[in-house]
Structures are given as structure tokens and as C-alpha cells.
């Protein structure tokens, strides 16, 4: 007997819309977002007829489709025959102070979000292209060019794919900066390791989520395994939206097999038969790389209905996002996969109980999953030994922005000092610039002044500095940077990316940006109230995290902020 008290028990994103999507997905219907993206790609913009078509084909009600079409950046910016997207992320800002944006606007004679009257060309802004090592970056069609003269090349219609530096490991034996070889999955299946045993091993390895929250992956997998229901999913969060961060991009494009293997192992341990990778649309090469790796894996019997003849079934679908930073939050990510607006849902229920299509789902960051194959082959002890002096097990990928002498992705152990990372690994700043500050872990991370570089690169040590490890991006501001500009830049990004659901973030970030965007002196009391409201009241880490860098700025550079 169904219990009528279920009627009002859940606070997840519209249970009904998710159920409608689930029913249509089971009939192989496309998501509404997929159909809308097709329309934008074919015709450069979305009409009401496109929306009705998306509703018909996806089974989503027309109003919901309309709401989706007004949420994602990729759907909102009209496209000409030539669509130019300029990066306004923090690394590009750190490089030019956004001068490159101005130059491009003037050079093309278009505002951001505008299409020429004859439809030949359009200009849009984007955050972030993952070419932070060579900022500023511009995407011309699907070619991503970057470097100090990139604007000139765009204006001359002479863009060429920018080079990406090779990645390196400082460990004696690379764990993550290596191509995947499926040895973990092979070993687990051929040795007959039981799913519960694999789960125990992953839990013992203490793999912490690499996306920023640091939640133990094994514990999350355990919740999903224990949840009721036959249908479960593994979702890889490839929506690396943090400006300045391109770690997952490298993993997806250089070691897609490693990620797929990690997902298959997760599926095995949890009891899921299908996985999804949500790849952000700002990384046009990631989806093709993953799909090719998946096709090869199919051919080799490593994915499909009967992996290596073991009876274990697992397959992966790669899905592209549509331009929203908050979709990196796990509940918003699931909404995006379902083709709905990428808004955040209150938790509980957690995705491990009620996730994709209402089914138990593990959502893990790409890098987190890439850690699993090593554990499957070498065990928890070897994994923990990778960072012998640190609180946290395993190794971490970090990436540096263009201000450094040697930008790029590096694999490092936890517990090393920030100074060693910035000076020895990345070579300090180039062109004789002095390092003024680094923002670690993304736009919601605290900002560390040069004087505090002896802090250790680990979760608690950085938290003690009002910073966070986050996703591992290390973004330097040089001594020519004005910190009020940084505050304004970060808050503009924060306000633009707010999903709009919770009131503190929706309104509060706008007000915070207004405080810094005007030239007027800033009253401290309302600012403090705003910061507290955001920290305590926000529904997710977007609004909740935005105060952290502002607090750093208030602490270390109060005179530059223009306080009253």
C-alpha cells in the first residue's frame, strides 16, 4: 500500500519533473536541453517552435522547457556564422585586467552577447576555457587560441589552436599523470574481488573528494550501495567551472581511460550499471576524447553488457553541459543531466539516496574517480603512502596560471608548502613581476598573501588560513593587481553564476557586487552583514563560499578595498 504521507516528504528538485524525465528517458527520449542545444548549434538561436519541439521530443512540459532555455549561457547568446567567445575568467583577468575583453569588443564593434546585424559574427563571454596557462584565451568557433597577441589574431581571423604544456608529476611514480591502462578493473574482475571488498579498500584508502568538498569517496559509495533500489548510477563531475582550473580537462583529454576505468570500478563497487560524465561545453575536446576512449573500451570488452566475460555490465554516456558554473554542484549537475534548469536542491535527500532520475547516484569529481584504479591495483596502504607527511592520502593535481614561469598541470603530494609549489615547481612569476597573492582552489577560495606562502598544501592547514584546497587551482595575482578590482571581478562572476534559487545568494551577491562596482566607499557593517548572511544562509557552497575571498581581502588588503 502506498503511504500517502510520501506526498510532501521530499525537498529534491521537482520530484514530478524528474519522474516525467525518467519515464521519457526510459523510452530513449532526448533531454530537453539536448534538443535546445541542437537548435542553437543549427540556427544560432532558439525560437518558440524549437521550445515546443523540445517539449514534444523530451516529454518535458513546455513551461519547463522555456525555463531551461533561459538558464544556460550557451542557449542565451545568439550565434552568428562565426561565434567568438572571449574568456573573462580570473586567470585571464589576472593576466590583462580584462583589457583583452575591451580590445575585442572595440575591434569587432560588438557588445558581449551581441550578434552582427548581418549574422556573420557574434561575440559572447565565457568562463573558463581551461587555457589559464596561456591567458588571455579566446574561442573562435571551436578553435581555442591564447596568448598575449590573441586579440590581434582574432581580429585578423587567424586563430590557431594554442599549445598546451605537458603535464608532469613530482612523485617518483605518477598516479594521475599517466594514461589509463584498465589494469585495476582487469585485476578486480580476474581475481574475483567482491564488490564489497573493493568498496572496503576504497574506503580504507581514504580517497577524499577532489572537487573541493573533500568528502570521503568510499563513504559516499557506501551510502549508495546501501540505498534501496535496483537502478543506480555513477556520475563523473566534469564541470570544472572554476576559472583558473584546468586539471579535469587534462584528465579527460589525456587520460580518458583512467576516468572510465574509475567509473567502472565505482559501478562495480556500488552496484550501478551505468555512468554519465557531465563535460562542460567550454571544453570542446573533452567529449570527443572520452567518446573515443569509450568506443575503444567497448571494442576491447572493457565496457558493455559483459565486461571481460565476468557478467558485470557497465556502460558510460558522455553528456555535454550548456554553460553554468553552478552545475558543478552535485544536485544542480544532476538537474542538468536531466535536461532541467541547473538549480541547486536542498539536501537531504542526498544523491546517494535520490539522485539521477530519483535513483541512488554517486557523484564524484573526475579527478577523484581517476584515483580509484591505483587503489584497485596497489591497495589502500600504497595509496596512503603517496603523501607520507600529510593529513590527506593520495596525490593531487594542481595547476598554475599564466603569471607563473612554468604554468601547467603538476602532480604533487599533499603537505608540501605553498612556497615550494609556487617557487620551485612553477618557477615563481615571470617578467620580473612579484607575487602579491594566490587564490587557491577556485573563485570561492580564500586568497593567500605572499607573506603566508609557508602554509602547507592540505585541507586543514589551508582552512586555518581562511583558504581552501578546493579543486587545486593555484592562481597568482602579481604586484600590479588592485585588490578592489579583484573583489569586483570575483563578485561579478559570483552574481552572474548564481542559480537564482536561494535568496541570500540571488540578491546578496548582486548587492555585494554593487558595493564594489561603484566608486563609493564601502560601509563595513552592511558588508559584514552580507557576508554573514551568505555564509550562514546560502543553500550551497556558491553563495556560502563567496565570502571567503572577500574576507581574505578585508584581512590582508583593507586599504585597497576603499572602505569607508
Amino acid at each position, binding site marked *: 500500500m502506498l503511504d500517502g504521507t510520501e506526498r*510532501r516528504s521530499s525537498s529534491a528538485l521537482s520530484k514530478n519533473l524528474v519522474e516525467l524525465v525518467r519515464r521519457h528517458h526510459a523510452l530513449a527520449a532526448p533531454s530537453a536541453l539536448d534538443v535546445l542545444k541542437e537548435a542553437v548549434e543549427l540556427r544560432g538561436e532558439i525560437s518558440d517552435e524549437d521550445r515546443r519541439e523540445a517539449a514534444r521530443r523530451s516529454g518535458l512540459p513546455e513551461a519547463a522547457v522555456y525555463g531551461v532555455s533561459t538558464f544556460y549561457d550557451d542557449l542565451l547568446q545568439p550565434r552568428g556564422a562565426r561565434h567568438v567567445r572571449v574568456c573573462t575568467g580570473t586567470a585571464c583577468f589576472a593576466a590583462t585586467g580584462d583589457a583583452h575583453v575591451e580590445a575585442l569588443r572595440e575591434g569587432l564593434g560588438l557588445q558581449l552577447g551581441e550578434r552582427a546585424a548581418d549574422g556573420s559574427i557574434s561575440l559572447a563571454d565565457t568562463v573558463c576555457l581551461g587555457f589559464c596557462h596561456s591567458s588571455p584565451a579566446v574561442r573562435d568557433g571551436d578553435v581555442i587560441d591564447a596568448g598575449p597577441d590573441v586579440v590581434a589574431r582574432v581580429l585578423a581571423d587567424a586563430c590557431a589552436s594554442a599549445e598546451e604544456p605537458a603535464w608532469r608529476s613530482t612523485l617518483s611514480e605518477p598516479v594521475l599523470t599517466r594514461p589509463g591502462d584498465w589494469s585495476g578493473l582487469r585485476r578486480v574482475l580476474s581475481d574475483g574481488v567482491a564488490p564489497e571488498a573493493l568498496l572496503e579498500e576504497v574506503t580504507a584508502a581514504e580517497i577524499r573528494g577532489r572537487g573541493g568538498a573533500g568528502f570521503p569517496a568510499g563513504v559516499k559509495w557506501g551510502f549508495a550501495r546501501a540505498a534501496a533500489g535496483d537502478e543506480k548510477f555513477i556520475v563523473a563531475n566534469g564541470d570544472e567551472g572554476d576559472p583558473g582550473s584546468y586539471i579535469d580537462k587534462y584528465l579527460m583529454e589525456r587520460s580518458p581511460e583512467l576516468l572510465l576505468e574509475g567509473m567502472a570500478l565505482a559501478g562495480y563497487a556500488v552496484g550501478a550499471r551505468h555512468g554519465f560524465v557531465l563535460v562542460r561545453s567550454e571544453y570542446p575536446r573533452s567529449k570527443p576524447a572520452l567518446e573515443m576512449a569509450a568506443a575503444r573500451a567497448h571494442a576491447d570488452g572493457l565496457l558493455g553488457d559483459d565486461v571481460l566475460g565476468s557478467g558485470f555490465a557497465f556502460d558510460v554516456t558522455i553528456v555535454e553541459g550548456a554553460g553554468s558554473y553552478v552545475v558543478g554542484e552535485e544536485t544542480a549537475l544532476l538537474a542538468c543531466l536531466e535536461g532541467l534548469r541547473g538549480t541547486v536542491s536542498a539536501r537531504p535527500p542526498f544523491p546517494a539516496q535520490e539522485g539521477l532520475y530519483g535513483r541512488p547516484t554517486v557523484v564524484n569529481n573526475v579527478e577523484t574517480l581517476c584515483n580509484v584504479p591505483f587503489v584497485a591495483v596497489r591497495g589502500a596502504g600504497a595509496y596512503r603512502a603517496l603523501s607520507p607527511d600529510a593529513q590527506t592520502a593520495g596525490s593531487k593535481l594542481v595547476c598554475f596560471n599564466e603569471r607563473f614561469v612554468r604554468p601547467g598541470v603538476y602532480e604533487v603530494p599533499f603537505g608540501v608548502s605553498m612556497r615550494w609549489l609556487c617557487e620551485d615547481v612553477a618557477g615563481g612569476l615571470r617578467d620580473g613581476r612579484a607575487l602579491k597573492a594566490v587564490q587557491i582552489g577556485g573563485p570561492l577560495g580564500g586568497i593567500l598573501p605572499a607573506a603566508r606562502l609557508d602554509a602547507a598544501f592540505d585541507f586543514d592547514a589551508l582552512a586555518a588560513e581562511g583558504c581552501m584546497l578546493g579543486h587545486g587551482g593555484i592562481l597568482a595575482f602579481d604586484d600590479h593587481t588592485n585588490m578592489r578590482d579583484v573583489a569586483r571581478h570575483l563578485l561579478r562572476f559570483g552574481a552572474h553564476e548564481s542559480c537564482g534559487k536561494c535568496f541570500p545568494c540571488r540578491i546578496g551577491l548582486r548587492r555585494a557586487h554593487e558595493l564594489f562596482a561603484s566608486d563609493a566607499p564601502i560601509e563595513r557593517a*552592511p558588508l559584514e552583514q552580507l557576508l554573514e548572511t551568505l555564509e*550562514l544562509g546560502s543553500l550551497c557552497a556558491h553563495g556560502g563560499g563567496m565570502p571567503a575571498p572577500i574576507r581574505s581581502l578585508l584581512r590582508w588588503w583593507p586599504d585597497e578595498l576603499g572602505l569607508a
Partner: protein
Amino acid sequence: MSAPPLTVTVTVDGAPVEVPAGATVLDAARAAGSWVPTLCFDERQAPFGACRACLVGVEGAAAPLPACTTPCRDGMVIDTEDPAGRRVAHAVVELVLSELPQPPAAHTELAQVAQRLGVGAPRWPGETHAPAPADTRHPYLAFQHELCISCGRCVRACDEVQGTFALTATGRGFDANIAAGLDEGFRDSACVACGACADSCPTDAITEVSLLALTSAADATNGGPA
């Protein structure tokens, strides 16, 4: 293994209260007769967790928790007047008032919550929703988009109560709002005019056409908008 208990007992503002298993902290507060400010909550719908005005103190928690989406656990000790929680509630309501082009009419839920919390005119001088003429194309239901605070109650009423799915949230961030169908107004959308959205709206962003005139009349009687 024995079946889980059907009820749990928590303490609200010093008084014990027994609630069904699965009840939220807000359910317990309401059962105990304690007022917790809410704007996005409607008892006919699942809790949404958007307004963040319902933060209450829970013993052992590092920070105040949102009452509407926090499940009760047996033995929880709840303080509905937690100072930090009330500070946030006050600040949230002040922010909400700041985005509207004029103060909310006295009969609206928003006005009544603001009054009860003691929130006066907002101190934020920034941008507000652009005023626009009311959309009265439908015989009964009117949109006043500039009054929308994106609480989501109308969309959820149409979804979880009526099941017609005629409404949606639109846009993102500060520009978020609501629309019927393909932003075509109630009449041309799937709307069946049940009025559940108007019943739930706390600001009159959706209201009855015939009541629009009453609101301005009432304001005039009370000496004009505050």
C-alpha cells in the same frame, strides 16, 4: 530487525513535542506553536529551502540550520529564536524588500513576515525589479512580475498540487522571475486557472485581476504606499 518508530520526540524552545518520523524541524516548530519566519514554505507543497529565513538553532550543530529541510532526529533540541538564525532571517527579508520597486501591500505574506520580524525600509540602494504594467490578459489571473521574489511557490503549486506544469522559473540569479508557458501569459499556456499559484504567492506577483484595484484602493485608504 524491528521496524523504525513511527514518531520522534524533540524539544522546541524548551517544550517537548512528538512528531511523525520524517517530520522536519519546521513541522515540529509549528506543532509546538512556535513561529519560524518563512517565505518559500507552503504546507501544501514539499519544502523547498530557497528563502533561508527559517534558520533555527539546533544543539550540537555548528551553525543554524534551515528548519524546513532538516529532518527531526529523536532528542533534537531546537531553539527557534537562535540569534544568528534571526539575524539571517532579518537580513534575508531586508534583501527581499530591497529588490522590489515598492513596499509590499499590507495583506501580503511578505509584508506580514517583515512586520513580525521588525524589518523596516531596506537600506540597500541598488537595483530593483523594473516596474511594468500588470499582465491581465487572463480573465482571472494577473502577473505583476516586478513583485516576484522567486520563492518558487507558484511553480510548485502548479507542479505538486495541480499537476498542470504551466509555470516555470526563468532566468538566473538576480534576474530570475517566473513565466507561464513559453512566457505567453496564463491564457495561452497550459494553465487551467485553478488559482493555486495565486493562493500561494506571498507578494501578489500573481494575484486575481479583480483584486488589483482593491489593493491600490486599500493603500490609498491607508495613506498611500509606505
